[in-house]
């Protein structure tokens, strides 16, 4: 291969390999979490007596499809089975699922509650089905709740959705399209521009000091 092609080809090859790696990582990165409410799980949010129930503090808007609810449950000696019920804003039951007892204390457990409607305000309640107190972890009164997908989607698969989401709370005229244009420019145009920069750098370097707007003559 001639040096004229080799030099710019290096940058294109490195970027191409990197983009391939990025695509593979994004394709293999399974996203089980559909929408986390984002509260921590360091403290006890609710302690539920046998047969009693506790609900999350206020309904939360869930903008994406989900069919599971993840909670952080249990303390040593308190790992009873629980029933998770999801209510709509009108208090109608939209989904329900159980978590079996005996889970490791303080771990995140998922209840399959069935397909939940998209873009609604949802409220999660937890009922203690066992004989020991159930403990739901969270941040103050806010339970550590995340809406889950039992069939995960890859990051790559969600890229378009991510760009749609990223276009909100931006300048008025911004939609998802500038993100696609930019992504294309970064992956395709940027390496070509750098390849050209490299080729020009080598040419100017060989051309001598007369083009120098900056440095002193080379030693």
């Amino acid at each position, binding site marked *: 291969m001639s040096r004229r092609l080799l030099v710019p080809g290096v940058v294109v090859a490195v970027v191409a390999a990197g983009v391939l790696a990025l695509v593979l990582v994004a394709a293999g990165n399974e996203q089980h979490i559909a929408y986390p409410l984002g509260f921590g799980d360091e403290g006890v949010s609710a302690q539920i007596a046998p047969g009693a129930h506790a609900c999350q503090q206020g309904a939360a808007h869930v903008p994406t499809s989900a069919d599971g609810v993840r909670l952080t449950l249990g303390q040593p000696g308190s790992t009873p089975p629980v029933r998770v019920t999801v209510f709509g804003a009108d208090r109608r039951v939209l989904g329900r699922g159980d978590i079996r007892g005996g889970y490791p204390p303080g771990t995140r457990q998922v209840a399959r509650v069935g397909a939940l409607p998209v873009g609604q305000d949802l409220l999660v309640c937890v009922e203690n089905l066992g004989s020991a107190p159930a403990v739901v972890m969270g941040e103050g009164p806010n339970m550590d709740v995340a809406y889950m997908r039992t069939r995960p989607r890859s990051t790559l698969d969600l890229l378009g959705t991510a760009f749609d989401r990223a276009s909100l709370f931006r300048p008025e005229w911004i939609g998802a399209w500038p993100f696609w244009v930019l992504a294309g420019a970064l992956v395709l145009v940027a390496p070509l521009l750098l390849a050209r920069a490299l080729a020009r750098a080598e040419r*100017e370097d060989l051309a001598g000091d007369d083009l120098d707007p900056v440095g002193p003559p080379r*030693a």
Partner: protein
Amino acid sequence: MPAPLALLLAVVALFCLAWVLIVPAGQVPDEEMHLQYALTLAERGELPGHGPNGFSTQQWTAEVATNWERMPGAPERKPPWTNGEYEKWKAADAALPPGSKSNGGGYIWQGDNPPLYYGYEAAAYHASPGRGFFDRLYFMRVMSALWVLVTATGAWLLAGEIFGRDRPLQLVAAGFAGLLPMVDFVSSGVNPDAMLYAFWSVAFWLGARILRRGLTVRDGVALCALVGVAFAEKSTSIALIPPMLLALAVGWRRLSRTRPQARRVATVAVLVSLAAFAVPAGAWVVTAKALDRPITNRAPHYVGKPAPQLTSIQTDRQFLSYVWQFYLPRLPFMQPIPLLGSGGDKLYRVWVSQVWGNFGWQEVNFPPWAYKGFAALSVLLLAGGAAAALRARRRGHFDLAIAAYFALAIVSLLFLLHWAEYTIMSLEGIAFNQGRYLLPLVALGGVVVAACVSLLRPSLRTPATGVVLGSLVVLQLFSLGLVVERYFV
């Protein structure tokens, strides 16, 4: 402008635009405060500290609507994802009463910063083609990101002084400064560090130019005026004053020896240069005094808890112990410093890891194994830089004064950062330093990378530059991918 530099700047601009658009509002460190400062100047025509509220109603409404305050440090918290939530904010924003843009301006810690950058951003606020809150915020971000182009250009010029007219080496130095993801991430938010990196980058070039070519009135004035302006931009630039004085002193000495009458010329050049420093720096000092404001950022004030003083021998001893434990394991006779554990890991965790990738409010990171790779790469680059310096010394190309100029800037910056952290740790018990605080040195980082490339045979330098630039693009893409995943997936 040389074509390779112009092409590189186009690429840098593309990446900066991506950072501007992708990172949600308020998720560049301290953006909320820096924005408040700029909005206070723009809407109230005054510096922060006297306003009726911490933030204007308009800014606060936008912050609440975008989950702005709840996301820092909590990787599972997301910004709003639905159009309904956006429309709800729009309706709330449209219904705000008159005066909602100008009723902020209360005290913020960042309000102690000098006003230059914020004045620039206040002008951008008024010049924004859109009038909505986010129209203006994102326009201000774009204007901030433009400074990365200056940072990269400064590195190009600096490499030109160090290596002579060697385009591949200049390109790799400028590429490193302009494409290091953390530089673009921080500079693409409303954050005065964007301007700071640019000023430091150009100051390194001007200092090296004086030391390499000799002191002239023009170069002396340019360096000193820049350092004066940088001082009026962010107090961190105090650390540029010692190297500036060194450059003037060496320049004066070298020029004085050239011919009998030269001493007078050199003295005039130094005096005029110092005057050029005094004008912008003095303007800020006088303004701050007139407004009864601190000239530099103040230590937090607690009744009955005096701030550490450098004049106390005991404080100095404790400070040295803190610095030791920052970099090295604690020795048996040293008093433990709670936030430093058994000592010695901050060099890796803060200065190395966070320079390569630490996004959002420090909660968006690469997997831990990646940082081990970055650390190994850092060691390799520093070793390569040292090898190149030794080779230059053997060949008689090494200018000790230039090395001392850079070293003094590094030591001054580190002293400033460590003293600030030691003070804040003593008073508030919290760690202060973050890797991004080293980024004013990014042009020197570019020179180190270029020095490594210079060790190769000339025929291999351009391909090696291609590998470095390609790798930086890949690092950028992975970094942007991390950010997209954190906020929008």
